[in-house]
């Protein structure tokens, strides 16, 4: 029970947030932070638990967003029906990219994913007939209302409902990651991260497990993109560019690589921090860069990892 208490409190705060945060702009940031948390959680599966630095997650995010937005605006699909194909497209690209690059180690992988990200945003920008080019896709409608069979309809026009939608998606993703990490697959990933050679000798099929983690992670990143497109109602090729992937890396590193809640903590911290430092608005990214370097130097395990170390020292365990 003592184990569960922090989770229940955290969950309750997350559910009550729309009533606690009355400032409209802060609430907007909170929704954004929840959506980015999904992206960061998906990347954490690869970066944190498997030890692969993927810089293609911005592209998977963008692919999911574009896929859903195009199906909704051009083919007039029901929003809910676009989620599976959007995730599948992201996962398919992830699998293809993984097949090509996962046999390589370390820096080769990072650089290959980086250039994949560039090509995706380039194609989205130049394929004007399909993607509207640099103008992007605007006025993406809110999710289709759900008919509750006589109990009225559930619509998603308000920000509060979109917040709960994103929160539900985040909770599902976290649950998925939790279950995965504590399954035999998760143990294989952990073994690979710690010592690839030893894991291979123990019979772990490295490429298979990496590919599995990578494509699942890509699908999750695609889901984050879908939610982003439907919340912001506008996407352009820049959303699929490198920076979203970079920011996700930053959120994870500062929150704590390979910790379960690190990505969420890091995202919340970094999305809301600039508001606390409003005076430094122009210097935001400069300060973030410095913060990232300082974190790598002095606290490589991030906020969550650092807190865990402190906690252990405090309780003497």
């Amino acid at each position, binding site marked *: 029970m003592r184990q569960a208490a922090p989770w229940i409190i955290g969950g309750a705060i997350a559910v009550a947030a729309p009533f606690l945060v009355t400032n409209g702009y802060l609430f907007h940031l909170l929704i954004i932070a929840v959506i980015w948390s999904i992206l960061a959680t998906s990347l954490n599966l690869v970066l944190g638990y498997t030890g692969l630095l993927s810089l293609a997650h911005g592209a998977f995010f963008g692919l999911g967003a574009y896929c859903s937005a195009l199906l909704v605006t051009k083919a007039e699909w029901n929003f809910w029906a676009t989620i599976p194909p959007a995730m599948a497209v992201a996962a398919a690209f992830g699998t293809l990219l993984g097949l090509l690059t996962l046999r390589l180690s370390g820096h080769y992988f990072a650089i290959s994913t980086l250039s994949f990200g560039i090509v995706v945003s380039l194609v989205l920008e130049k394929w004007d007939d399909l993607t509207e080019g640099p103008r992007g896709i605007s006025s993406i409608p809110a999710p289709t209302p759900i008919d509750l069979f006589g109990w009225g309809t559930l619509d998603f026009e308000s920000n509060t409902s979109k917040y709960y939608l994103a929160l539900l998606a985040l909770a599902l993703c976290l649950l998925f990651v939790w279950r995965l990490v504590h399954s035999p697959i998760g143990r294989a990933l952990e073994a690979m991260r710690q010592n690839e050679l030893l894991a291979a000798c123990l019979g772990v099929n490295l490429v298979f497990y990496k590919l599995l983690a990578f494509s699942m992670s890509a699908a999750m990143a695609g889901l984050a993109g879908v939610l982003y497109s439907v919340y912001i109602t506008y996407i352009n090729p820049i959303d699929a560019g490198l920076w979203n992937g970079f920011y996700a890396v930053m959120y994870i590193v500062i929150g704590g690589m390979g910790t379960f809640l690190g990505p969420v903590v890091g995202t919340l911290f970094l999305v809301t921090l600039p508001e606390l430092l409003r005076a430094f608005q122009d210097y935001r990214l400069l300060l973030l*860069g*410095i913060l*990232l370097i300082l974190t790598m130097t002095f606290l490589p395990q991030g906020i969550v990892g650092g807190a865990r170390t402190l906690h252990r020292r405090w309780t003497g365990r």
Partner: protein
Amino acid sequence: MSPFLIQQVANGIMVGSIYALIAMGVAMIYGVMNVPDFALGAKAMLGGYVAFLFTATFQQSYGVALIGSIVVLGLLGIGVERWIFRPLAGAPPINGFISSFGLLLVFENFALLAFGSTYRRILSPFDRQVVHVLGASLTMQRLIVVVVAIATMVGLHLFIRFTAIRAVAQNRRGALLCGIHTERIAGVTMALGSALAGVAGALVGPIAMVYPTMGETLIVKAFVITILGGMGSIVGAIVGGYILGLIEALGAMYVSVDYKDAFAFGLLVLVLTVRPQGLFGKAAR
């Protein structure tokens, strides 16, 4: 060969020189420090701005501006190695990569705050003189890019061959055992690599513009080139730079101008599937 083709080849060699300079910096730094320096493109951008300051603000000649970028970026490289990469020595390599990404953020946003987002042009007296080579007409500046780049790369390559940098790149621990001050060598390498990027920025400034995000595509292409040439192989980086420059120039002519920036990726896919260790790399993985 048609004059147009010769023109494109000449352009390809010019662009390839810039790529080769930065890729050589990446290969040097990777060889010694085992970190792909993601901030090197941003250092090229800073080199461009330094040259801009020297020519526009201090009214110096273009030659002085080139040397100025080398000196300023070299000093920056020493500082970066000492204060950012040296403390990370024992950490996993991924940490260095992430730190260099933090540096990229710092440099780009510093440039944005200091110089604004407007495109700046470095004034060079050589930009108006036209020379004719084999039927192609080139500005003197383009010729200077190629000549300076090749001279720098050959000189530096010889320098590396006969100094301890080579030893450290081959085996850091072995070099340390032989009494080589590996940390100092890392500093020197970082300084030289950064200076290479600085030269590249100052050279390309009069042709293309100088702006805060100009380094992003440069560094990604330099990375692709180092994979093409084999990670850490300096000759591979130089050859790869020219290969990519030529492929882009000819591809833009025969295939598509819109997707010019995607050719690097196509090349990467090809290399990764056919020869993952790169053209000049040892089969290590």
